[in-house]
């Protein structure tokens, strides 16, 4: 079976995507699902901004505002930013290291479907009696007193999608350690691969605490536990520690791949080798380590005492050093380069000052005594949106334009892309810059309204106008996607013409086997080296031979559906008698399918040498 024997049509395509284990198709699934949740989270943000546009507004009720705020944070972190980054990791990392797929294609698919059903479960809460309303952190003291099933949706949904994220993280670790092409040493890996590697390591160590934390919360809420109930000897502060032991590394899980994306874009369009490659790698690893030593800076005001606060304050400020190294390296990469201001490059240039501002307010917040003033004000909201939007979302949008031709074979329209950038950039600063001052003036975060005459009116109105601009920018991007899909022209392997890493050496979109012959990597930026020597393609590391491919499978989808069903059973088991049986049925589906997977031998198939010779596209061709 090769590409030639594929059926076309709507339902065959759907079936193809439901069963696919191909990293490039899973990347597209991540992009679609992550994009959908990004839009949902964005709509929730806009509703909140409309509520806060004028004082004493009653556009939404206080309860609904809490739900919007909780779901905005949860959706954007777990269901939008992480999966969108996974989309690019899936699309690009195997190509960048010269591999034919990830190490465990089946698990890759399972990771996606677990994330997807977890996300769907969480969002169904809107239609089944109210969304979670305890904040994206779900602090135990708030979560345990939240009536209804909202927080249960949060607990069970995140448990399922967290499994998916953990599985995907482990998959990337194994892929990057084991599947690199000959010559691709660690110190020749592109920076996006490096940051993916470190971020996956962080996932490996950070997600188990989250799983434990929300599992304990689940026992407290659904099964009569009292881990966090002080009245019965529990301790609510422990939840905060466990959450932030996860929560702070999570910030780096998001921002390190973003750094990686910009470290790919800047050398490409400055047409210069990345400045200080070794120090970039060192800084990435160092940030990963330091990320685990700073979590208590989220808890300065809980009463840890001056010594603990001082230790965590100093540790937090230390992170500024490797991050500063990175910022200067990006600047020095651009310095003296022959820069092309394409859409991705505009995002990269806009990212540096925006992210540095977020970093500076981060150092301000890290000063524990000052934090007593900033805590729980809009200053904090402004800070983390500068870091996450100015860093991660800019990177996601930049990567969308940068790798779109590689993923879909068509260039996004540059004019529309630049309009998106200008609208989003202006809208972003309009929304969040003023929030620093609202915070310093004393406006608390997570409140659904404010009184007039306190000096908050104009600032909030400006903020809302900015949010609308960001919304328009996203609509322009979606129009761009539709226009490109309908009208766009097919592009070749290296549409930006200055590609440096291996992904630009294969056709766009790449054939299912990626590389006809595994390439030989002769240094950092392998494609650039070959180009400089006047070669058209990469040097192959092996003779042309049959390629072993994994079979598609529907089992990951069914395993995930089982957990989705079981989650409903667990949630309603105190209310209805069908709860326990439904949970059992769900688990039987999941574990039964896992059992089937274990006993059925599936050896995959081969693409034969003769078919490869007939297939002129792809392989090691520029």
């Amino acid at each position, binding site marked *: 079976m090769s590409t030639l024997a594929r059926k076309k049509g709507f339902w065959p395509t759907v079936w193809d995507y439901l069963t696919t284990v191909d990293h490039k198709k899973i990347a597209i699934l991540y992009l679609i699902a992550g994009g959908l949740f990004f839009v949902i989270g964005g709509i929730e943000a806009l509703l909140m901004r409309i509520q806060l546009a004028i004082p004493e507004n009653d556009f939404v009720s206080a309860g609904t505002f809490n739900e919007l705020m909780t779901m905005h944070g949860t959706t954007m972190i777990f269901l939008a930013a992480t999966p969108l980054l996974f989309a690019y990791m899936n699309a690009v990392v195997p190509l960048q290291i010269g591999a034919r797929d990830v190490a465990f294609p089946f698990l890759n698919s399972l990771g996606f479907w677990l994330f997807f059903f977890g996300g769907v479960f969480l969002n169904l809460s809107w239609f089944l009696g109210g969304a979670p309303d305890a904040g994206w952190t779900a602090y135990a003291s708030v979560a345990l007193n939240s009536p209804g099933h909202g927080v249960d949706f949060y607990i069970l949904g995140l448990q399922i999608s967290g499994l998916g994220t953990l599985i995907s993280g482990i998959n990337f670790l194994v892929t990057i*350690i084991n599947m690199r092409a000959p010559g691709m040493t660690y110190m020749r890996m592109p920076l996006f691969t490096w940051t993916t590697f470190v971020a996956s*390591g962080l996932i*490996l*160590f950070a997600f188990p*605490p989250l799983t434990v934390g929300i599992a304990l919360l689940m026992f407290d809420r659904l099964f009569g536990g009292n881990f966090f109930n002080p009245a019965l000897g529990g*301790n609510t*502060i*422990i939840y905060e*520690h466990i959450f932030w*032991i996860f929560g702070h590394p999570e910030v780096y899980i998001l921002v390190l791949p973003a750094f990686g994306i910009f470290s790919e874009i800047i050398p490409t369009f400055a047409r210069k080798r990345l400045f200080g490659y070794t120090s970039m790698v060192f800084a990435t690893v160092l940030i990963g*380590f330091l990320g*685990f*030593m700073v979590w*208590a800076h989220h808890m300065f005001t809980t*009463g*840890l*005492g001056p010594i*603990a606060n001082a230790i965590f304050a100093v540790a937090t400020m230390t992170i500024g050093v490797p991050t500063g190294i990175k910022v200067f390296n990006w600047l020095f990469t651009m310095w003296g380069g022959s820069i092309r201001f394409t859409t991705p490059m505009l995002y990269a240039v806009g990212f540096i000052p925006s992210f540095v501002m977020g970093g500076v307010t981060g150092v301000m917040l890290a000063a524990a005594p000052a934090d007593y003033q900033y805590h729980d004000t809009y200053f904090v909201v402004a800070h983390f949106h500068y870091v996450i939007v100015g860093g991660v979302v800019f990177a996601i949008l930049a990567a969308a334009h940068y790798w779109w031709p590689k993923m879909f074979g068509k260039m996004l329209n540059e004019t529309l892309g630049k309009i998106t950038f200008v609208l989003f950039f202006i809208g972003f600063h309009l929304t969040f810059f003023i929030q620093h001052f609202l915070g310093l003036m004393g406006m608390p975060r997570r409140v659904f309204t404010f009184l007039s005459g306190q000096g908050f009116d104009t600032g909030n109105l400006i903020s809302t106008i900015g949010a609308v601009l960001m919304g328009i920018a996203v609509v322009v991007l979606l129009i761009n996607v539709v226009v490109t899909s309908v009208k766009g022209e097919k592009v070749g392997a290296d549409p930006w013409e200055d590609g440096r890493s291996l992904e630009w050496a294969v056709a766009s979109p790449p054939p299912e086997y990626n590389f006809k012959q595994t390439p030989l990597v002769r240094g950092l930026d392998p494609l650039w080296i070959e180009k400089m020597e006047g070669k058209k393609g990469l040097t192959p590391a092996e003779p042309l031979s049959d390629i072993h491919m994994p079979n598609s499978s529907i089992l990951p989808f069914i395993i995930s559906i089982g957990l989705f069903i079981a989650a409903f059973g667990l949630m309603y088991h105190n209310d209805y008698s069908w709860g326990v049986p439904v949970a059992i049925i769900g688990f039987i589906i999941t574990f039964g399918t896992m059992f089937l997977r274990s006993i059925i031998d599936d050896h995959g198939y081969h693409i034969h040498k003769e078919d490869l010779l007939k297939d002129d596209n792809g392989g090691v061709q520029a």
Partner: protein
Amino acid sequence: MVSENSRNPKVDLAFRRKKNAEEMKHQVVSFALMIFLTIVAFITVGYDGIDEWLKVPFIVLLACIQVIFQLYYFMHMNHKGHEGPQFFIWSGIFVTFLTVLAFMTIVWW
């Protein structure tokens, strides 16, 4: 290792024998040390002259040394090609240690 060598009959047998003998020596030495450490641990618990507060950290220290012997000599982590697992094991120990340390020192009850 075995499969790699079984493919090649011309492998330097003398060298391998020397290598194996050396490894055996290491294993015997570390085994003897481990038994000795275990005896020390028993004596520590049995001896009344030492304070409880000293006994517990001392035995935990002995246990850590035993785990390192186990991993490096008996599970061959000292061989080449184990850098990846070593890195992740030590990172995991580091993260766990930090967490436990923080919980023991700054979480108020």
